[in-house]
């Protein structure tokens, strides 16, 4: 009989015969009476002493700096030096469900449902698109676990890529997946399997060590060739950190790295820095260890308890730790780790999608044309290279803005804009003319076959903007409460949303004007500008709003734009460009949306004059700027200065589709 079975039998025979006393609950509950009741708020009148008053002032100041008090708004935590922190985390809840978190706030962006994953080790490919998770809930190590492949963000579910396996790790270059595999009949991990993700069927298995050791905690080294592993030798009962050139076919036991493993010691690789992460001390401190042996250690931060997991992003500057089912994130420059709300068994950074080449932009990659409003009255398609007018669309009156969408599935091309209707849905409201939203569609995507669909929007429709997925058009409602409106092109259903709260709650009274400025490429965020009563400064917001997200998931972030901010547009899902007038010029800078309150930005380009609207193409590489004097400018990444395309333009957008 195996020793495990003998032990299990002996424990069960001994312990199962024990019958605890039947009245134990009354003995326990009697002791509850000694426990003080939960505290209630004091009913004494509030009298502030000098010290208390100072504390309150500091707290209120802190609140003002971080947020204006609306509890649906996002309060962002500190970010690391350089603001490089990946924007998302893939976490596993305590009941085994994978979720995607906003790393800045800890809020859940996306959940996959199901309870099947362990948080013990998560590997994410460098492009942030695929994750490998350990699934199973047994206690036989890898023997009753498998590795799942999950497409991040697609919601398409997962598939098993290896059985009797654990500890997946992906090489920093994204080429290899390695994991531990059990030998038949054993419940330990004795083999390392390496799979070439770029070639189907290419898999290498290290020779079985014939029961002389087993391997824990596998992780790729920074060079994408070696793997590091915690090797436990049966003969000595010792565990050592080993390294083997797995790509060249080197088999365990490999080379002894010379770092302590186990309770306090090596816990992982620090991204691609070539350093290791360790844990030591009380309270436990996370260290960075530089080799080769003898290693020197530098303290990074301390945790409130012993972590069950410590993982780094590729840069080594951002670290996640799990302590007692709580996620903590730390970035270089932070004094202490930030606790994220929720109960999680584990987590891993999701690398942000690689940024497009910032030095040069291929002019040929620019969209074919510019959809422009000429003189506020006429729509036209301009050549994006030289600004020549190619396809006059039609003449209307007072067009405030324009956006379009090409449906690749049906070939339909739609233009959305607002015109005016002097009959007015505002009735006797003395305000400006009421806007009427007009939709033009073409089944073949070209102007000769335009059909015109006109729809009146109750309360007007300022600055309509169609979402890239074509599901909603956002606009500002002028009468009957200044608020955001949405209409669904298909079905024609209309919605109203408070632009400050992000939900259908009561319309904020202080809003004077609402202007949608554009959607994120993934259609999950809307950029808009608010004019508030008694405040000359324009306020720019990025919102995940009802009805395109659920009420409970709405979030509104105010961009830290100044009084001279004149326009804004999405660059990519997490970045917006904001135009700021500086004397005779307008400077356009990019801002990370997730870092509201963070002053770090990147300069993109400068335009002579005062810019009234800007637009970016879907790749975030080509920009348009319209000035108050009617100048239309084009700037592509890599250009030293913008090129003037046309005059007399009042609004513009890159043409979607062919």
């Amino acid at each position: 009989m195996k020793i495990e079975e003998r032990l299990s039998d002996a424990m069960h025979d001994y312990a199962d015969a024990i019958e605890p006393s039947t009245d134990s609950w009354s003995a326990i509950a009697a002791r509850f009476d000694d426990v003080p009741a939960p505290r209630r708020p004091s009913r004494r009148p509030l009298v502030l002493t000098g010290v208390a008053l100072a504390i309150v002032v500091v707290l209120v100041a802190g609140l003002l700096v971080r947020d204006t008090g609306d509890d649906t708004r996002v309060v962002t935590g500190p970010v690391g030096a350089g603001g490089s922190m990946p924007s998302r985390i893939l976490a596993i809840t305590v009941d085994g469900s994978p979720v995607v978190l906003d790393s800045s706030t800890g809020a859940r962006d996306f959940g996959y449902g199901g309870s099947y994953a362990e948080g013990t080790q998560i590997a994410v490919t460098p492009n942030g698109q695929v994750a490998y998770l350990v699934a199973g809930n047994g206690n036989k190590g890898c023997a009753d676990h498998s590795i799942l492949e999950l497409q991040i963000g697609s919601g398409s579910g997962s598939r098993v890529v290896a059985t009797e396996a654990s500890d997946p790790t992906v090489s920093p270059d994204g080429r290899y997946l390695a994991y531990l595999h059990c030998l038949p009949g054993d419940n330990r991990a004795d083999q390392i399997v390496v799979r070439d993700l770029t070639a189907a069927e290419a898999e290498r298995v290290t020779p079985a060590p014939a029961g002389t050791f087993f391997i824990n905690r596998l992780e790729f080294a920074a060079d994408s060739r070696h793997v590091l592993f915690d090797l436990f030798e049966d003969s000595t009962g010792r565990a050592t950190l080993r390294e083997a050139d797995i790509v060249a076919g080197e088999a365990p036991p490999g080379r002894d790295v010379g770092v302590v493993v186990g309770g306090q010691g090596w816990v992982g690789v620090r991204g691609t820095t070539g350093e290791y992460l360790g844990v030591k001390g009380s309270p436990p401190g996370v260290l960075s260890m530089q080799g080769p042996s003898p290693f020197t250690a530098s303290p990074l931060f301390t945790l409130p308890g012993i972590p069950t997991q410590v993982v780094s992003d590729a840069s080594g500057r951002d670290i996640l730790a799990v302590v007692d089912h709580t996620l903590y994130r730390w970035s270089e420059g932070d004094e202490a780790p930030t606790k994220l709300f929720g109960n999680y068994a584990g987590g891993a950074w999701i690398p942000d999608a690689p940024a497009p080449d910032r030095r040069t932009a291929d002019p040929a990659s620019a969209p074919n044309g510019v959809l422009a409003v000429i003189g506020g009255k006429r729509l036209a398609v301009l050549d994006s290279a030289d600004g020549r007018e190619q396809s006059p669309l039609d003449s209307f009156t007072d067009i405030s803005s324009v956006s379009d969408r090409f449906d690749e599935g049906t070939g339909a091309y739609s233009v959305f804009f607002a015109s005016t209707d002097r009959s007015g849905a505002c009735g006797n409201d003395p305000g400006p003319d009421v806007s009427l939203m007009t939709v033009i569609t073409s089944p073949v995507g070209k102007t000769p076959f335009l059909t015109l669909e006109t729809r009146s929007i109750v309360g007007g429709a300022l600055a309509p903007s169609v979402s890239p997925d074509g599901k909603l058009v956002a606009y500002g409602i002028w009468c009957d409460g200044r608020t955001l409106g949405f209409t669904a092109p298909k079905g024609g259903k209309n919605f109203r949303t408070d632009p400050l709260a992000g939900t259908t709650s009561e319309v904020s009274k202080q809003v004077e004007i609402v202007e949608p400025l554009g959607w994120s490429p993934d259609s999950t965020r809307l950029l808009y500008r608010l004019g508030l009563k008694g405040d000359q400064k324009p306020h720019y917001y990025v919102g995940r709003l009802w009805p395109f997200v659920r009420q409970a998931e709405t979030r509104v972030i105010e961009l830290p734009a100044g009084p001279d901010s004149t326009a804004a547009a999405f660059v990519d899902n997490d970045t917006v460009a904001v135009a700021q007038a500086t004397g005779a010029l307008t400077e356009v800078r990019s801002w990370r949306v997730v870092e509201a309150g963070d002053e770090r930005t990147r300069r993109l380009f400068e335009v002579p004059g005062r810019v009234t609207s800007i637009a970016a193409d879907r790749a975030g590489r080509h920009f348009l700027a319209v000035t108050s004097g009617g100048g239309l400018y084009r700037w592509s990444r890599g250009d030293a200065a913008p090129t003037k395309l046309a005059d007399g333009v009042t609004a513009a957008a890159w043409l979607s589709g062919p």
Partner: protein
Amino acid sequence: MMADMAAAGEGRSELVRTDRDVVLAEIHREHYPGLVRMACLLLDERGAGEEVVQEAFVRVYQSWSRVDAPLRYLRATVMNLARSRMRRRLVARRRVEPASTPSLSAEEHLVLLDDQQEVLDAMRSLPRRQRECLVLRYYLDLSEAEIASTLGISNGSVKSHASRGLAALAKHLEARA
């Protein structure tokens, strides 16, 4: 009615208290025997096992606002209290008299085979972490992840401690054979 209780100033504490009473009573009904048996395996003393588990329930009650998973918290508390109890007992033994074999009742002697008693004695002689990992794994049948979170250690450490414990156990029993 619950809303009425919550609305009344005095009722708020009662509501909170009632919730935790109900949850803890439910856990007690389902898991008390298992927790006591686990504590007995660690402590080799039935009375002490019951004391430790009862104390753990009171501690969880006191810490209710911080507890997100009561059963896991309870298990971890039992482990900690059993550990403290063992430490105190070792100190007491050092002061009073040389270590003596833990006494079993006549009934326990009858039901346990000699071989099983040897296995248990050997298990109790293991270092603390190894002993805890083996009890949680082979008696409570917890997953490695659950053991890791109960003991606040990594999965890899659970595997190493369990493997070391089993190897030491086998060696010990071989030496006696």
